[in-house]
């Protein structure tokens, strides 16, 4: 069961990687007056902050929902968790400059934990 999930994750992360490359190209087309590096960094940031943690947090529902739906809803869920948690972390004194690095890691870890912990 866990092996199957691991295999699924590997496969799906490849799709997500491909979609990231696709969106770098799309952003370069939309924002053609900027360099590809600016577009690539923005897309990478969006994937790091929302898409990847969203994917892992939605892993729990991988049997019920298809990847495309989990991927899109995951972005909304990750944005919600990030925005709210960042607010509270700031209030307890953890500077927001660290949140962009730490929160996606923590959210992804929690998502993996729940995903694999599902009975």
């Amino acid at each position: 069961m866990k092996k199957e999930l691991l295999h699924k994750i590997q496969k799906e992360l490849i799709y997500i990687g491909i979609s990231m490359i696709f969106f770098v190209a799309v952003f370069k087309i939309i924002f053609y007056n900027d360099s590809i590096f600016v577009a690539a960094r923005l897309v990478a940031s969006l994937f790091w902050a929302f898409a990847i943690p969203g994917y892992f947090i939605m892993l729990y529902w991988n049997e019920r929902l298809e990847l495309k739906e989990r991927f899109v809803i995951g972005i909304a869920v990750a944005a919600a968790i990030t925005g709210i948690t960042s607010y509270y972390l700031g209030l307890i004194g953890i500077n927001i400059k660290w949140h962009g690095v730490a929160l996606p890691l923590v959210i992804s870890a929690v998502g993996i934990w729940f995903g694999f912990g599902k009975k």
Partner: protein
Amino acid sequence: MEKSKISGKISIEIIYIAIVFSFLLFLGLGNLWNHQIKHEFPYAYFASDAFQHQTRAEGIKEAGSYKNEPFYNVFGVKDVVGYYPPVLYHLAVILSHLSGLEVYDTIYFLPFFFAALSAIIIYFVIRKLSIGSAILAMPLAVLLFYKGAYTGFTWGVWPSLISQFFLVAFFWSIANIDIEKSSFLFAILLSAVIMSHTSEAFFAGFMLTAYFTFRMIKKTATKDLIKKILIGALLTLIISSFYLVIFRGIWMERQPYSYSVIKEWGSPTLFIADFKILILFFAVGLIACFLLIKNENIFPIIMSILMLLFSYTNYVGFGDRAFQLRYFWGVYLSVLFGFGIYHLAKTAYRKWSSAHSIILAVVIFIVISFAGIEYFPSYEKISSPGIMNRNNWDTLQWISKNTEQDAVIYFFYGDAYNQDAILRNSKRTHKLIVPQDYADAINKKEIRRYFETESPGDGGGGAAIRKGLLSFEFKLDEMEKNKEFEGKKDICSFDYYVFDKGTAQTAFAQYNIIMAKELLKKDFVKLVYGNDNTLSIILKNTKPGEDCIEEGTIA
């Protein structure tokens, strides 16, 4: 119901979704931003509210948290509790740190990014009912960038737009409430609605009630469903409780709900008639929904109809909150539109397939986006740098980096300054001359020391200082009592003066130069920024309070 002929070929569906998302971003933001991500100053900002949110986010980035409002946003009062719903600001600052972009770009990017994503989320909501309808619904999202709806973006109604994005995601969670552990998704998305722009949560609550009632009528409201809703509601309360205390103690105190029927709004908005011929498809969608009344997955249609009704609750006391929902009509009404056009197509051609739906959707996209046909609503391209310009930005940046933190800056007339939140980019306490009084001085050819003066700032939260866990003191009341915001002020009492040398009405520019020259006659007033080549100059008054200008008439 139509059987999916594209479910096996996921690539076609995914490509369609990805192209629609990209296309919406291209139309909405690409054109508006001159196809650039990175700008040298806040670009395409068209109203004060946009600067309000931008400067608040800048303040959070500098402070590292949203414990307090930046003092320059609240009349120079320090330690004012951060009272605005915080989610947008935090997301913008995080994205700024990660992407290397300025906050003024990321905070503007997010509403477009999430609005485009809303169209995809609603696709998945409709998809459970009919793939063909879902495909055909998507072109209506182009009308997010149409007339009054577009001004929601360009005028800076961003917190509401972000909240409505989470509201759409919350609707998805309702549509999927029967999946295991859905309470978590329900709670986190509803909390994000509350903590992005709280008023949308009322509509979320109404929607949930309507959905539950529907399930009761259908006799499918199981114990498990009730349990999920209760757990979701409880989790939401826990997650958002800290902010809700602020909302209760500040917003509900300062701007309590009062019943008022308004038919028109101060900001541009949409009316159903603006959809022109497309109303016919909404009507067909509405009629067709009765055919599906027994269908379990009818929630998307209930949602669409209710959101349309909620958008008209300005007639029953919800005021501008109702109008704000109309910014997202391109998403909410897409259900009725897609459903209507799909049923017409299906009636006309029995063998209608998903591939046909995609082809027709592409045609509709083209018509709504580019054709400009009179009877069809269509995308309206906006392409302008907006209110800010390089000169104003450089001037404001200079102030923020080179003046003392407690300095008070006095702005003489500038064309952009009527959208006064732009001045918060000075990151200092600031005052602004009242143009009418300035014009009066020009007409009478007088050099004056005392002018009618505004104290711009965000008064919505009353400049609240926290006095206890549940109690707040409103500094604004004290300031109003002391008449700090009224009447003529002595310009000699301020630390810096900003003069624009280029204004649309040359009389203002000429008088600005005269006033600057008069002030410079005193040896304690010095030119600290600008020269003959710059469009603005800044003078420093090294002896605030002393007689800084000779009153008289212009020869």
